[in-house]
């Protein structure tokens, strides 16, 4: 019993930090550009597929971990420049339709290129066994995912709090026009944030693609979870997304222990409750602004 709770905790944390990688991009993109990016799940999926191809073709997981986010980042840049940018300043609804269209498109492309069957990214050789700590035996690779994601999140967190770029991002989420008038080319920042978010989602796709199967439904599967996280955390808040992702990760893991069929229900009830109690999410900016 204790073991299963500890394991579920580890799983919940691991899911939390990887979900946070996906949700971080989503929330930052919303914060700065007011874009509700429905295609974000598709970018995560592309990460999984590029990761799979690279890992199997070059036989190196590490190449996949580095290259897939770069490729998806470049695709994200193109997406931002050619489809999103002309729509800035319009009602965010149009971005919903646009990115919905993009998600459908990318899914079609994935089916064309990779086909419909489930794949899995081969794990790196060093992480095949499992580790036993106290009462818990846990697969090494899963711990690796937990550690790597946590490290990346911490670095991002620190950067957002302290670096010039982080200050820039927070300021842009607040008032892009003012940032622009201070002499900063905001459209470059937009592209940068979008690329960054896309690469993070792709990174999560590679990391999870070696524990979960890579399949054409994975993008649409994660986007709703990501939305729930972003909404609970507060649209535009990175900090909120991280906390909410951990919350959702743990709810998912514990929910499976308690009442598997109702886990999904918990997520939405949680989201509804948070919105009713704090309409702008846990760390929403609306009240402060």
């Amino acid at each position, binding site marked *: 019993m204790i073991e299963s709770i500890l394991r579920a905790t580890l799983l919940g944390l691991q899911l939390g930090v990887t979900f946070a990688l996906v949700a971080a991009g989503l929330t930052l993109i*919303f*914060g700065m550009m*007011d874009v*509700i990016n*429905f295609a974000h799940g598709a970018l995560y999926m592309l990460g999984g597929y590029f990761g799979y191809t690279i890992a199997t073709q070059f036989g190196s997981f590490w190449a996949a971990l580095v290259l897939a986010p770069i490729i998806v980042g470049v695709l994200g840049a193109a997406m931002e*420049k*050619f*489809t999103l*940018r*002309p*729509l*800035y*300043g*319009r*009602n*965010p*609804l*149009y971005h*919903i*339709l*646009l990115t*919905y*269209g*993009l*998600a*459908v*498109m*990318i*899914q*079609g*492309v994935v*089916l*064309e290129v990779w086909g419909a069957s489930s794949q899995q990214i081969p794990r790196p050789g060093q992480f095949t066994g499992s580790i036993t700590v106290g009462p818990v035996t846990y697969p090494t690779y899963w711990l690796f995912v937990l550690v790597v994601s946590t490290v990346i999140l911490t670095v991002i967190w620190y950067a957002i709090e302290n670096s010039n770029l982080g200050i820039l991002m927070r300021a842009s*989420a607040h*008032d*892009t*026009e003012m940032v622009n008038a201070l002499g900063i080319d905001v*459209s470059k920042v937009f592209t940068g944030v979008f690329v960054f978010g896309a690469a993070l989602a792709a990174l999560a796709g590679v990391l999870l693609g070696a524990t979960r199967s890579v399949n054409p439904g994975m993008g*649409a599967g994660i986007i*709703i979870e990501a*939305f*729930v996280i972003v*909404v609970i955390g507060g*649209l*535009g808040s990175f900090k909120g997304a991280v906390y909410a992702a951990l919350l959702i990760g743990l709810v998912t893991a514990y929910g499976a222990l308690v009442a598997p*069929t*109702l886990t*999904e*229900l918990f997520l*939405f*009830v949680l*989201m*509804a409750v948070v*919105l*009713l109690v704090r*309409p*702008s999410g846990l760390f929403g*900016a*609306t009240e402060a*602004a």
Partner: protein
Amino acid sequence: MKASEYLEELADGTVLDRAAAGSGSEVLSSSQRVGVVIIAAVLVVFAPIADATSPFWLNILTRILIFGLLAVSLDFIFGYAGLLSFGHAAMYGTGGYAAAWLISEVTTNALVVLPLSIVVGCGVAAFIGWFSVRARGIYFAMLTLAFAQVFYVVILTDLPAQVLGVETITGADDGLFGIARYGVFGIELGGGLPYFYLTFGLVLASFAVLVRVANSPFGRVLQAIRENEDRVEFIGYNVQRYKLIAFTISGGFAGLAGGLYVPFQSVASPGLLNWTVSGELIVMLLLGGLGTFWGPILGAGVVIFLEEQLAGFATWEIILGTVFVVVVIFAPRGIAGSLETLASDPRAAVERTKEALSSYRESIKR
């Protein structure tokens, strides 16, 4: 501009105004009414021909009408009253399930079942709305999404049966199947043509009712809420209650659409309630033209037609996705908006297209 400003604009609908045709005046101008009547007449005449030559097209048409009704019900609350509901699938699905259950257990009489579908749609909408109408903009959308997904999961996991300890109520992931079509006083409406006429009649009537309500004192208050929610409150209207009632009315028509769709398909499946249905509906609305009432029906028609036609192409998702992307970038007022511009001033339409293209080039150059 700040996010919060957009949200405010979204909430009070000032951005949408420009997309919405006919705001500030009558919903559905008299020339548009004539158009609706003509199209309706054509459909009445065309139906038996289609039935005799290619019943498949009659089927498509029936589906388009049902989805058109669903789209108009959403347009009433979203395009007209400015509340983006991301949970319309819940009312649609529960209305459908109610019909399925009643038909299998009680009666196939449409005069009994359909009103109850409407009541169930209203009830679910009132429940969701009661929690959600206090929120605005994106938050309203997210709340409706959350509650609708709750209904989806409840039906998918057959929670009522689990709670009551009976074998099945919603049929879980299988849904309810073998649902017969309606009869009215012993007249079977099982065939394609009778069912088409039933649907057609009800959709037309619903359309007329919604247009009428939109043009009623109540409806005008909704329009004002879309434009400036706060001020409506400060000229003495109970805005929350207006929103709740509007959402409930809209839910009733969504329930009716479900009640028409389920016997038509002979199954009620949990997929009816999934968020993707709500998402597809919004696509239909934006594609057709928000706030125009007739545009969304057109949008429903185009989406269903494209899905059917492109289904022969291996890459159809890519094509469909591209169509959405192009429309959204170059024709933000939807098909209805483009048609209106084209009809009123063809030269301006050409100009606008040129403008749209050059501003696109401009924006990607930077």
